[in-house]
């Protein structure tokens, strides 16, 4: 324990720089010490986020007693060091070096897009160059304009290596590197050809850091002001700055201060926002369907119609005939009001959100095991884990900046175990890849637990003191030997054993999982089986441990928090707790619906049957494209078409919106004030940066308008006012205010009072439910297993470049160019058996339908195929299975039986 204490104590050292005594933290470089002391040192290759490099040779200094001219950026500061940053020799060498660089740097400054922001200009100004040296060679090498997002002008490259290092150290993609030697040394995309043919992931980290005009975004403009916001895509919730010029977003940058992403972004965040927000295809006026055609209408006309129709249906069939699907894409405030509308105005508990299709099993499973259904730890902690067990998560594609973080952890020496049927990017850098068959996670988790226990690597003290149910658990798990598991999962027993030991020995060890685990009808119990692993090892309740579901959409956590779920009131408050119910009834001034808490709950995945059975007549869908993203969408579409009245509130005319009676145009994330809650329970602010296009309104306002017209006044003056109401009703949000959110980079719930700093990780000394609960879980197969007719097991997922229904990302020409159509990954052996070639169009047929997709022959377990689900022209969910988890109603979109036919 002593050694840990020593390590954590920050030692201060003193050194003399240019005659001035300076104090700094031990472990800093001389350059960092200089910067802290406000001493400028010229440099072209230094980047505080990257490892020391020492390439440009401009930050050279003299150190008493040291030979030569060491670079300050690589020189560790030491107690008593005497440093000179200026001398005749230093400057003459610096100038000579700079002149060499300038002699190899082409282009005209005035017409360069980096003009004024160019590091080379700054350094030249500082060192004082009297004239431009003659060029060493003609700078006429072709500019690589092949990528949709940025251009690479090698003539302006000064080989500082920042791009290469950022790609390797921050993104972990290794898509660019140095090639050749000597004067021919250059930065080259992997493969050596055009950038577009490389394995670049277009995170843009290199572009944002390039000190010269070598890497510049296409059509970039400098902003006149910046607005801090949150990326509207996935559940990571990267903090961003929107650069605004006039009424347009002209740039997007990550917030380097943010612990969520540390300035890092993915291709969607960096290059996929501007075109989506400013798309000409945005809905701009309310639309009312008349004779099968949408007709533009005024807001009054549309809202009156909506209110009237819902009122009529409620009167005719009762409140339970109405339903609301809130949105994991809209702000907390709108979600809170949407569920309030359902429960207080419509009088129905048929309110849900898209968490149903993804992490409802996590909410339930973790609740059962720990008492709290969210990510136990924080994103930033991933980087400090010693061992990461990653299950069913293609992180680099679905949660790209977390994917990069895992890569960074591995770079720093963390062990990585990847359990995934596909050889995903992270599997390639993993210490162990467990290519399990889809839907066999329980067996794998049990076998891992089995081996940990039989090897004596379990944490007995932790089990004794902080858990319950171990005996029952062991009674079940006993039979799951690695050898037994090998037959079911297809993973060699030896590998399972290695993985078990590696995870158990991790100090600390962390589990990260995603939809590969949850999107099965065994989702909840699979989550429990995984949670068991943390309980036997005690890898929970400490930094960089825990069981961490990566939430899907940017505000899916918030939508759940807000109670846009039939099973919980806001803040996971319970129907069966009279105090909770009473609190809301008093606050809202209504009686809550009697159907509350009655099973089976009508999850949105059950609404379709509910509609078809004639129980549900009117549906209000906010920002959700169920006609594309739900399983077995044939049924979904049929249900939507048979509704008496469907209102869809959207940004774009989605397949779902097309089926609506009324379409209401909503303002996007950049056009509103509000809060999003990301996967790590961090509540962050979005701010109105620009005016919404046309007549679009913020979602919360539209909800208020409908409510007002239905006779329940909602007269909030601002989103903040909504938030003030909800936080008073939700203890976990109790201490969060807009002001505090502005002062911090968000706050992580639980945050019960205004003095509370938020919670980085859960279950520190005590589980939310008291003791951690072991569960003995038996493997159940997917509902559909391959057979002679449908010999393949289809699993689905996201790609990096598109986001879910892709209503936004497909507005972005560059993203569309990168992934224009649906595809199916097939293993080489299967492809050969089928006679299918890479790039060939195939028909994928299940018991529910058929879609066309382009074959991609890739490393994936034999008998398993993979498809994304973003393309409405070829909607994968036509064929997915809507078998539901009996506990939480999540559909088994990760496993269904298909056959593949050659299309030609």
């Amino acid at each position, binding site marked *: 324990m002593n050694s840990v204490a020593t390590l954590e104590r920050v030692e201060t050292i003193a050194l003399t720089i240019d005659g001035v005594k300076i104090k700094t933290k031990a472990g800093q470089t001389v350059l960092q010490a200089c910067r802290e002391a406000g001493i400028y040192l010229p440099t072209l290759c230094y980047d505080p986020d990257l490892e020391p490099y020492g390439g440009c040779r401009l930050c050279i200094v003299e150190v008493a007693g040291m030979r030569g001219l060491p670079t300050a950026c690589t020189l560790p500061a030491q107690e008593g060091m005497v440093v000179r940053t200026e001398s005749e020799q230093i400057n003459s060498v610096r100038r000579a070096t700079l002149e060499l660089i300038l002699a190899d740097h082409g282009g005209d400054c005035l017409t360069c897009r980096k003009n004024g922001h160019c590091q080379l200009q700054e350094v030249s100004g500082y060192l004082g160059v009297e004239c431009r040296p003659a060029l060493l060679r003609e700078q006429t090498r072709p500019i690589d304009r092949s990528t949709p997002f940025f251009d690479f002008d090698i003539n302006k490259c000064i080989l500082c290596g920042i791009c290469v290092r950022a790609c390797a150290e921050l993104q972990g993609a290794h898509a660019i590197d140095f090639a050749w030697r*000597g004067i021919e040394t250059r930065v080259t995309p992997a493969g050596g050809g055009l950038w577009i043919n490389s394995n670049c992931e277009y995170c843009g980290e290199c572009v944002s850091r390039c000190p010269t005009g070598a890497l510049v975004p296409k059509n970039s403009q400098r902003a006149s002001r910046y607005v801090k916001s949150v990326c509207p895509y996935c559940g990571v919730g990267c903090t961003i700055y929107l650069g605004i010029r006039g009424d347009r977003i002209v740039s997007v940058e990550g917030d380097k201060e943010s612990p969520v992403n540390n300035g890092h972004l993915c291709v969607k965040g960096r290059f996929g926002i501007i075109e989506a927000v400013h798309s000409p295809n945005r809905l701009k006026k309310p639309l009312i369907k008349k004779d099968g055609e949408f007709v533009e209408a005024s807001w009054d006309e549309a809202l009156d119609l909506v209110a009237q129709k819902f009122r009529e249906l409620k009167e005719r069939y009762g409140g339970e005939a109405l339903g609301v699907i809130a949105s994991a894409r809209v702000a907390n405030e709108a979600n809170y009001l949407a569920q309030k509308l359902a429960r207080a105005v419509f009088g129905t508990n048929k309110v849900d959100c898209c968490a149903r299709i993804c992490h409802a099993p996590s909410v339930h499973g973790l609740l059962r095991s720990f008492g709290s259904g969210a990510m136990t730890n924080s994103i930033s902690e991933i980087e400090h884990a010693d061992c990461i067990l990653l299950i069913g998560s293609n992180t680099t594609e679905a949660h790209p900046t977390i994917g990069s973080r895992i890569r960074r952890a591995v770079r720093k020496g963390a062990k990585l175990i990847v359990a995934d049927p596909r050889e995903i990017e992270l599997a390639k850098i993993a210490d162990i890849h467990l290519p399990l068959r889809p839907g066999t996670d329980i067996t794998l988790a049990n076998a891992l637990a089995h081996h940990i226990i039989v090897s004596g690597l379990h944490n007995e003290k932790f089990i004794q003191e902080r858990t319950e149910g171990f005996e029952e658990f062991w009674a079940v798990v006993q039979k799951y030997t690695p050898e037994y598991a090998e037959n079911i999962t297809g993973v060699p027993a030896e590998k399972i054993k290695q993985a078990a030991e590696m995870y158990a020995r991790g100090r600390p060890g962390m589990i990260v999982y995603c939809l590969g685990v949850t999107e099965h009808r065994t989702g909840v119990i699979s989550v429990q089986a995984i949670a068991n692993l943390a309980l036997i090892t005690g890898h929970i309740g400490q930094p960089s441990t825990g069981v961490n579901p990566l939430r899907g959409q940017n505000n899916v956590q918030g939508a759940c928090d807000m109670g846009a779920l039939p099973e919980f009131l806001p803040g996971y408050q319970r129907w069966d707790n009279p105090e909770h119910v009473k609190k809301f009834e008093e606050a809202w001034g209504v009686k809550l619906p009697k159907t509350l808490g009655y099973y089976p709950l009508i999850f949105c995945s059950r609404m379709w049957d509910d509609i078809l059975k004639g129980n549900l007549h009117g549906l209000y869908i906010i920002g959700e494209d169920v006609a594309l993203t739900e399983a077995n969408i044939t049924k979904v579409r049929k249900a939507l078409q048979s509704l008496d009245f469907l209102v869809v509130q959207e940004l774009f005319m989605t397949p779902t919106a097309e089926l609506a009676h009324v379409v209401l145009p909503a303002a996007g994330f950049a056009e509103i004030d509000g809060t999003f809650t990301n996967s790590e329970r961090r509540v962050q602010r979005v701010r109105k940066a620009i005016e919404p296009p046309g007549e679009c309104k913020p979602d919360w306002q539209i909800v208020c308008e409908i409510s007002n017209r239905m006779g329940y006044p909602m007269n909030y003056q601002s989103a903040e006012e909504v938030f003030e109401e909800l936080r008073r009703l939700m203890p976990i949000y109790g201490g969060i205010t807009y002001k505090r959110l502005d002062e911090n980079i968000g706050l992580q719930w639980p945050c019960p009072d205004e003095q509370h700093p938020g919670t980085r990780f859960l279950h520190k000394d005590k589980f939310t439910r008291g003791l951690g609960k072991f569960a003995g879980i038996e493997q159940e197969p997917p509902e559909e297993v391959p057979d002679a007719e449908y010999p393949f097991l289809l699993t689905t997922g996201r790609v990096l470049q598109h986001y879910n229904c892709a209503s936004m990302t497909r507005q972005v020409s560059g993203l569309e160019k990168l992934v224009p159509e649906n595809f199916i990954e097939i293993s080489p052996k299967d492809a050969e058996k089928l006679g299918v070639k890479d790039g060939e169009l195939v028909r994928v047929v299940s018991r529910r339908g058929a879609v066309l997709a382009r074959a991609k022959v890739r490393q994936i377990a034999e008998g398993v195929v993979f498809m994304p689900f973003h393309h409405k022209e070829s909607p994968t969910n036509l064929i997915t299975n809507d078998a539901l988890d009996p506990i939480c109603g999540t559909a088994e979109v990760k496993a269904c039986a298909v056959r593949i036919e050659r299309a030609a």
Partner: protein
Amino acid sequence: MKTEQRLHLCQGTGCLSAGADRLYKALAHELSKLDLPVELKRTGCHGFCQRGPIVICEPQGFFYCAIQPQDAGEIAEALSQGRAVERLCYRDPQTGRPIPTYHEIPFYKGQSRIVLRNCGHIDPEDIEDYLAVEGYQAARRALLEMTPEQICAEVERSGLRGRGGAGFPTGRKWQLCRQAPGSEKYLICNADGGTPGAFMARSILEADPHAVIEGMLIAAYAIGAQQAFIYVRAEDSLAVKRLRIAMAQARERGFLGKNIFNSGFDFDIEIFEGAGAFVCGEETALIASIEGRRGMPSPRPPYPVQSGLWGRPTNVNNVKTYASVPHIIRNGADWYSQIGTKQSKGTAIFSLTGKVNNCGLVEVPMGTTLAEIIYEIGGGIPGGKALKAVQTGGPTGGCLPASLLNTPVDFDSLTALGAIMGSGGMVVMDEDTCMVDIARYSLDFTQKESCGKCAPCRLGTKQMLNILEAITQGRGRMEDLDRLERLAKSVQAGSLCGLGQTAPNPVLTTLRYFREEYEEHIKYKHCRAAVCKGLVKAPCSHTCPAEIDVPRYVRLIAAGRFADAHAVISEKIPFPSVCGLVCFHPCEARCRRALVDDAIAIRALKRAAAERDNGRWKLYVKRRPPTGKRVAVVGSGPAGLTAAYYLARKGHAVTVFEAFEKPGGMMRYGIPEYRLPHEILDAEISEIEAAGVEIHTKTKIESLDQLFAQGFDAIFLALGAHRGVKLGIPGEDEVGVLDCIDFLRRVKLGYHVELGERVAVIGGGNAAIDAARTALRLGAKATVPAADADQEVLDASRMARRLGAKEVRIIYRRSSTEMPASPEEVHEALTEGVQIEFLTAPIKMTKENGSIRLDCVRMRLGPVDASGRRHPEPIPGSAFSIYVDRVISAIGEAPEIPEGFGLRQTKWSTLVVDPDTLMTERPGVFAGGDVVTGPASVIEAIAAGRRAASSIDKYLGGDGDISEVLIDPEEDAPFELEEGERPRVPIQTLRIGERLGGFRQVELGYTAEEAISEARRCLMCDLEER
């Protein structure tokens, strides 16, 4: 089969490439045929790779080199009789005498082999062999009897410094790594032999891999590492293979793996095959490469001992360092620290390559001088060429001039001079090496091998290379030299790693030691080694001081067009015939044909052309209208007359003043008649007079003011160097030593010179030879040999004695290699009976009984002097006396400048002029030839005359253009090159018997057919670019 008799057959990369594997089979076959109880052993490299394949017969130590499979039978047979095969033995390059055992071969004799001890003597693929020479004893001792601290201390006490080049104390490095926090540590052996011409790492791994493994085992135990890597180039496949075999055998024996020697210590080694980047010899780049990253270096600190491979403390040493360790542990630090110098202990291993007789791996104690390595072990420079420079440490090492050859080889001495020890490359360069080109070549290499990470190295080396290329192509400017130096210093100071920091060494050292070569390239577009392609059309014409277009006239001769050939020669010089007879032809020394067989006989071809001239060239001579300017030329030697000739052609009125009776200077009074008959000289001088030059003989000029007063607009002083230099030994004046020049002039003028019977000529230049041969002729007058004397003749000295002729001997203090006289003159002199006492110096003269007693001492070649030659030093106790009747001193001449000139002189009494214009400090007064340079050659004087003419013409308002085209340059056509070797067509000479009776021309010249045949040997280098 262990027997007394062993045949060691080298199976190193060098010998294998020379066919050692086939030889092995042949030997095995022959031995089995004879059923000899002989062990045939494959060994690693002996180091003498140049002479491979090598076979050693032990225990006698018979050493056979360059053995072919067909020699196997003979070797086997001799072995059965216990004798050596003389035919296959190494031969002394000087004497041609076979040296049967390697113990006596200078290449081995001069070495102290410690690290290379086993190389060539054990089978690298058999661990038994290594164990038999106490292999792994040191490791056993270290692991079982010593603590890691003790080992570090012992190694530190031994003074061992890292053999990778930087020379960091090894023991201290181990200690630092041992003390660095962290339980996981690594050991790396840097075996990346990236330096061109340095192959010792590879050779040691091929020949003695266990020594490296044992050294690593000891080091690993000392620092606490359990895993090691050997970084070796994949292309060194034999080294990799032998290492793998050795590691497997070591593992089998338990020297690698778990619980080694039951000490509880675990250790293993992995081979990492590098892709071959020079920069990966740098430890941080090497580490990056092992980690799977691009091999780019990182700044230190932090040092690898703190944070190396995967951030763990890592000790990096090279092959030589590890291989030294077992010897230190076995024999103790005291033993090791006795070897070498105060600061650099132990031995240095070099791969000696380049222009040196014996190339190969050399191990000598630190502190051995470069001269000792090059001359004693390396056997000197081949082909009698002069040594120009040595580059140590590979292409980033500095080039040291011959004058610094006494530098002891150790880390600090070399660094002080701007060179480095580096990884131990040592490239010897002779006079055919252009130092600017070497700098360019080195930079071309380093530039291409720069990893590109830091700007100074990536861009600075390229900028330097560009400048050097411009200079070697004739586009250089004088200010480039300053730029180059500034750049070099910034790259040195600013670069990240050793590559960039040392890359400027070749530039800085050549600028420091060979600046004049740079200036010649820039100012005169001249490359004295005739190497730089952009400047050199053909090496012969480039080397000719007068720039005669040699290939063109040779080609015309090949076509049988002798008169046209003469016209080409006449474009540049007014003395084609004289030069055809007496030129010292530096052109031939650079002739590329010599690489095939012999150089073209350029001088003889010139004579052949001159002899067949028809005067047609005169039709094309341009005569310019009179300028009204008058030029006085003082002195009528080759410089004065050449200047006069071209000035007259430019329309100036030229008057030549000559103190002697007849014009011609040294051509007339210094060169004996048997080499240059006076009528030939007269004919060429009359052509000059015909061009309008007035020659006033017997007119000695004492005052320049007088000349200007006479209305001359410019004066050219070409007084030559006529005053002999004194020997400076006791008795010189008492005995009446004859001055060589005075002697030759008197003979020319027909005066009687009393020589007596026995003559000693002191000196080694052409003048000495001329004096000796002349003396021989004078004395031989009375005893004209019989007409039949030329049969069997030609052991000349014997004949001379038989005839009872005079005894003429030359006394020269250095050896034949250093002798400045033309080899052909020396040859003729020896042929005629002159004796030469090499390595002998007179120390005193006394008159004794009517003759002169000349006390001499034998000399030996010691350290190198400022001229880059090894300085002769007396051998103590070797004094002896000879008795002669006359002593002629021929050790050099100096000019005599009349006091009244009032011009500044150097300490050698030569005139000070502007090197470019040849003008003295007095405006309008120019000087050239020997009076400026000291005694030189006819052709150099002619060249000086040309430069003076051009310069004076400019001074007088002309354009300075004295070029002439006397035949259409397009007229010569290339001929078909002959394939294969064909030596030079011999030049007929007068039979010995006919020579000594008088001063008849000795050389008879070529017939037309012979000349054509000789000319057709020309390789036509000048057409290469066409």
